[in-house]
């Protein structure tokens, strides 16, 4: 059936030559598993585009409704959490795929003449994807989104002379608010996609004009070439399918919960950026004072500039990595720095003692029920009942506390502490607070 329709169309539209250009492009040295990353990136872009369109069915880009609309998607819409998960993990996968794609192009010297323009278009594509990530992060309008974006924009403010102006333009005003959200939304779903599609077109157009680079030794390339279809297409399909399975599994298995709704007045919230911005976040911890602009904009501008113009900086005509020690060495140094910063930041992230919200709630209960009327903590409160300053050390057993709150006399005979009407959650919160009262945190 399909082939008959195809024949019918072909006899009118003359499709055979189109098919030949698309599928029979010669690949010097033959198909390879290492050439799949470009196709994987393209697939992930399509996945982002599709899931993004569907998210837009319910999303509302205003501070009043953005958060509620995402919650609606998560809780009320069939497969809503899955679709949002695909979009979230798809973004991460895309950053990884681009990284591997660039690494391959770098290793194979695929940026060398005549492919300089293809590399440069690729770098711009990479930057666009990072802007995608940055603008998309704000859209859920939860605490993380709000405060991470706040920090990102403030960094731009450190650029001399124009910093303030740029910050205002990014926010659409003096503060991060309704106008910021709507412009981030418009940029994320209208401006960037059109730009990205145009640049992907350019990237692929150049590829088809100059052809793929192939192996780095001419001897291997001369062994023969094969067409794009079927083997390379097959390899691409296998890896793409694997990537899809991984992203879908992450979307199903790893919940990506919203934090609380953005609260501009709550400055105690410590946001964590997405992992692909983490290395940079970590870098900022080591540069302070007058050196800060170095990290906030001089270094990034330098790195982007070097990346963009790399084909003109590395003039060594050889493509074989063995004959390019300087280029490869600098590439390795760059990777090691970025990866160790990433590793460090992840390590630090887990080392930060996370404030347990139940402790804070317990503390509030302690105040509400007037416990300080009899008990004393660090010198504050009455002295009729035991001092609780270090009760977490002297009574480290949570069960004991819960039992004790339910019925003080049952575990402590002769106690004159009254029974308080506490529900299970309050019991738990209050016990958490008791256990947190220790000499050493």
């Amino acid at each position, binding site marked *: 059936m399909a082939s008959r329709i195809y024949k019918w169309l072909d006899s009118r539209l003359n499709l055979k030559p189109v098919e030949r250009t698309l599928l029979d492009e010669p690949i010097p040295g033959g198909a390879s598993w290492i050439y799949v990353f470009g196709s994987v990136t393209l697939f992930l872009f399509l996945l982002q585009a599709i899931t993004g369109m569907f998210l837009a069915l319910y999303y509302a880009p205003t501070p009043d409704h953005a958060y509620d609309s995402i919650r609606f998607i998560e809780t009320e819409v069939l497969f809503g959490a899955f679709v949002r998960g695909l979009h979230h993990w798809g973004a991460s996968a895309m950053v990884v795929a681009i990284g591997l794609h660039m690494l391959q192009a770098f290793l194979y010297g695929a940026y060398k003449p005549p492919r300089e323009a293809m590399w440069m278009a690729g770098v711009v594509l990479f930057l666009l994807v990072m802007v995608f990530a940055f603008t998309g992060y704000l859209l859920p309008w939860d605490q993380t989104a709000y405060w991470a974006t706040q920090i990102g924009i403030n960094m731009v403010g450190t650029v001399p002379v124009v910093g303030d102006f740029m910050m205002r333009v990014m926010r659409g005003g003096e503060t991060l608010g309704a106008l910021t959200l709507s412009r981030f939304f418009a940029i994320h779903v209208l401006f960037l996609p059109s730009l990205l599609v145009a640049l992907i077109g350019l990237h692929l157009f150049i590829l088809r004009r100059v052809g793929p680079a192939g192996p780095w030794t001419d001897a291997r390339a001369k062994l023969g070439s094969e067409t794009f279809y079927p*083997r390379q*297409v*097959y390899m691409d399909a296998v890896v793409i399918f694997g990537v899809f399975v991984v992203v879908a599994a992450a979307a199903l298995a790893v919940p990506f919960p919203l934090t609380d709704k953005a609260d501009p007045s709550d400055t105690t919230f410590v946001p964590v950026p997405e992992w692909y911005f983490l290395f940079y976040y970590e870098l900022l911890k080591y540069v302070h004072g007058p050196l800060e602009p170095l990290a906030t904009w001089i270094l990034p501008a330098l790195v982007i500039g070097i990346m963009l113009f790399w084909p003109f900086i590395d003039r060594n005509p050889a493509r074989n990595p063995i004959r390019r020690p300087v280029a490869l060495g600098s590439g390795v140094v760059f990777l090691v720095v970025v990866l160790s910063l990433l590793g460090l930041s992840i390590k630090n992230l887990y080392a930060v003692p996370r404030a347990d919200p139940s402790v804070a709630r317990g503390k509030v209960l302690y105040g509400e029920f007037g416990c300080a009327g009899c008990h004393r903590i660090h010198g504050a409160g009455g002295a009729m009942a035991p001092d609780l300053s270090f009760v977490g050390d002297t009574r480290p057993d949570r069960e004991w506390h819960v039992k004790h709150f339910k019925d003080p006399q049952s575990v402590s005979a002769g106690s004159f502490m009254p029974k308080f009407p506490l529900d299970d959650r309050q019991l738990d919160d209050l016990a958490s607070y008791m256990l947190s009262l220790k000499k050493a945190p």
Partner: protein
Amino acid sequence: MSSDGNPIPDGEAGFSTPVGSRRTFMGWVTSGLASLIGLGLAIPLLGYMISPALKRRVRPWVDVGNIGDIPPGEPKQLDYVTTIQDGYVENRSHKAIWAVKHPDGQIKVFSPMCTHLGCGYRWEAEEKAFKCPCHGSVFDIDGHVLAGPAPRPLDLLPSKIENGRLLLVFKEFKSGTSQVVEL
């Protein structure tokens, strides 16, 4: 997507381009995997798009007041505020319904909209009738049409009494039809 069976152009394809059954196999695997991805996306996305459209609004019982406040034999308008869930938006809306207490203690609750074209009607105490100002429909205390263009009696709302409080489910009905059609 398949160029199976096409003669490979001379010279363009190198000797290592798979041909014959290998070529067919790769073609099948490629289309198979592509279809799996397509299905894996199409099914959830379709459900995602359709599911809220099919959801029926759950109308809760709302408390509109004390039954002691309703004088027997005299219709009384009761106001209340209700939240209406519109997707992710919660709307607070004022509603005013007519409650009639019969001498036997039974309470009937009428939708506040005239069955003709949906205007709000009033109780005229001297004439002992509900009158609609828009096109002059007149209803008796049981909601029956006495005069005017109204095609059916006033619409009853489901109601019940719990602990001396009047509870009801607010509904809206299509106007202008002789049948009662819930919206």
